């Protein structure tokens, strides 16, 4: 009989500028909280998968974490797929459980990305997702690569930066009522357009902050309230120069996950989609098929992504406002969607008991894509 994978434990720490903890400290804090949520202790875990931390650069982060928390798993390895790492690890955990090779998999990301290094070091490290000889020496940085994507996206759809700004405004509105969010002060479209240019057409409020924090989930064969009914990945390029802007991989990853679950985008009640920049979210929503081409910002402005909208999206505030601590950044979307499906989101609970959730992560420059469908059992 086929084994179903469940998400039995979830945890996200507060995100923000929180000096004093190392990457391993954040990972251990998140891991402990997720295990407690699952009603397990570390020795119960038979697989540990841990994401990279740029501030640590350790050769074997999963073994390091396992020892720290008192786990002695049969399977342990690190994972590196940029911002998609969290959902790539989830997908791997689901495969291990489905195959019968593990019954309880701990998946963890955490980093002192804000406080553990200078902004210059962080920018230089992240820029290495660009080509070492033909992109980085030109002055390529992650904001610059996404700014080029934004330039092409806006030109192809005859839009202006004001058409992306409502996505930042909605994420901030979500974060205002989320405990632990990095940025909570309300903003307007005018605030976004008046903020400092980072890499035009992207301005400061089009960009996520850099945070400290961690997130973890426990994937089990044992029943839990939420099952993972489909996962999918796509890896079409590494560098922006080689990207097919009409087929970045998001649709492929999402289709694999949705097909496996027997679902379509229309079935999704609550979603968490990677939003490192406003344009990231616009491109992903449109390529996956949640929005018609060129309409993601207009949908945000119309309230479609609000808690009581047709597609509640990143209801914790996303990377843009809950914050981005590296691998944990994209995992907070997963934690939030599971929280909503459990019906335990409190003041920010999506109404009408959502039953089908969808999450998507993007790594590099739209290089690595991972999606998952989560459903109330």
């Amino acid at each position, binding site marked *: 009989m086929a084994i179903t994978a469940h998400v039995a434990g979830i945890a996200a720490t507060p995100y923000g500028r929180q000096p004093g903890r190392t990457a391993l400290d954040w990972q251990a804090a998140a891991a402990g909280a997720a295990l407690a949520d699952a009603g397990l202790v570390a020795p119960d875990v038979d697989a540990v998968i841990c994401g990279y931390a740029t501030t640590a650069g350790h050769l074997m982060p999963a073994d390091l974490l396992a020892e720290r928390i008192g786990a002695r798993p049969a399977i342990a390895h690190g994972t590196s797929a940029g911002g998609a790492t969290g959902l790539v690890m989830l997908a791997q955990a689901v495969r291990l459980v489905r195959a019968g090779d593990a019954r309880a998999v701990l998946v963890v990301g955490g980093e002192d990305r804000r406080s553990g290094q200078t902004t210059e070091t962080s920018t230089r490290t992240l820029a290495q997702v660009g080509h070492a000889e*033909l992109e980085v020496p*030109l002055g390529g940085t992650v904001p*610059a690569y996404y*700014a*080029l994507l934004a330039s092409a996206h806006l030109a192809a759809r005859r839009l202006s930066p004001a058409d992306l700004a409502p996505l930042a405004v909605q994420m901030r509105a979500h974060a205002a009522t989320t405990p632990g969010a990095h940025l909570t002060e309300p903003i307007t479209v005018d605030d976004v357009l008046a903020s400092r240019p*980072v*890499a035009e057409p992207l301005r400061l409020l089009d960009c996520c902050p850099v945070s400290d924090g961690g997130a973890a989930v426990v994937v089990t064969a044992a029943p839990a309230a939420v099952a993972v009914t489909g996962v999918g990945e796509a890896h079409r390029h590494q560098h922006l*120069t*080689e990207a097919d802007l009409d087929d970045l991989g998001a649709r492929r990853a999402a289709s694999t996950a949705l097909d496996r679950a027997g679902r379509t985008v229309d079935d999704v009640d609550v979603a968490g989609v990677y939003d490192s920049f406003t344009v990231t979210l616009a491109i992903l929503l449109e390529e996956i098929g949640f929005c018609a081409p060129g309409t993601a910002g207009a949908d945000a402005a119309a309230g479609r992504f609000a808690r009581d909208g047709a597609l509640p999206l990143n209801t914790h505030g996303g990377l843009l406002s809950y914050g981005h601590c590296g691998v944990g950044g994209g995992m907070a979307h997963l934690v939030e969607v599971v929280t909503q499906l459990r019906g335990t989101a409190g003041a920010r609970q999506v109404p009408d008991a959502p039953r089908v959730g969808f999450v998507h992560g993007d790594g590099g420059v739209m290089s690595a894509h991972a999606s998952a469908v989560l459903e109330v059992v």
Partner: protein
Amino acid sequence: MTVTHDACPSCGRRWTLPRTGCPSCGAAPRRSVSSGHGSVAAVSVVHPPSGASYVLVLVDLDDGVRAMGRGGPGLAVGTRVRAATEDGLLTFGEA
């Protein structure tokens, strides 16, 4: 600075960054030299935390491949450009 790209001798596919195999058919590619002429596909003025701002562009070359470079002044999506070398960096200026 010459702009180079790969071409697949088997299926004809072309791309920019060096690969050891064609992503369509797997054949070993040959390196070719581009004319360096094309149209701007994307443009950004980058403002680093310290130092002067600069322009980055993606250019769709007439050879059917895309390249990243620095950009000269006054470029917009669709502007016709040609490749040159400025300060040792591949730079596209208005043709």
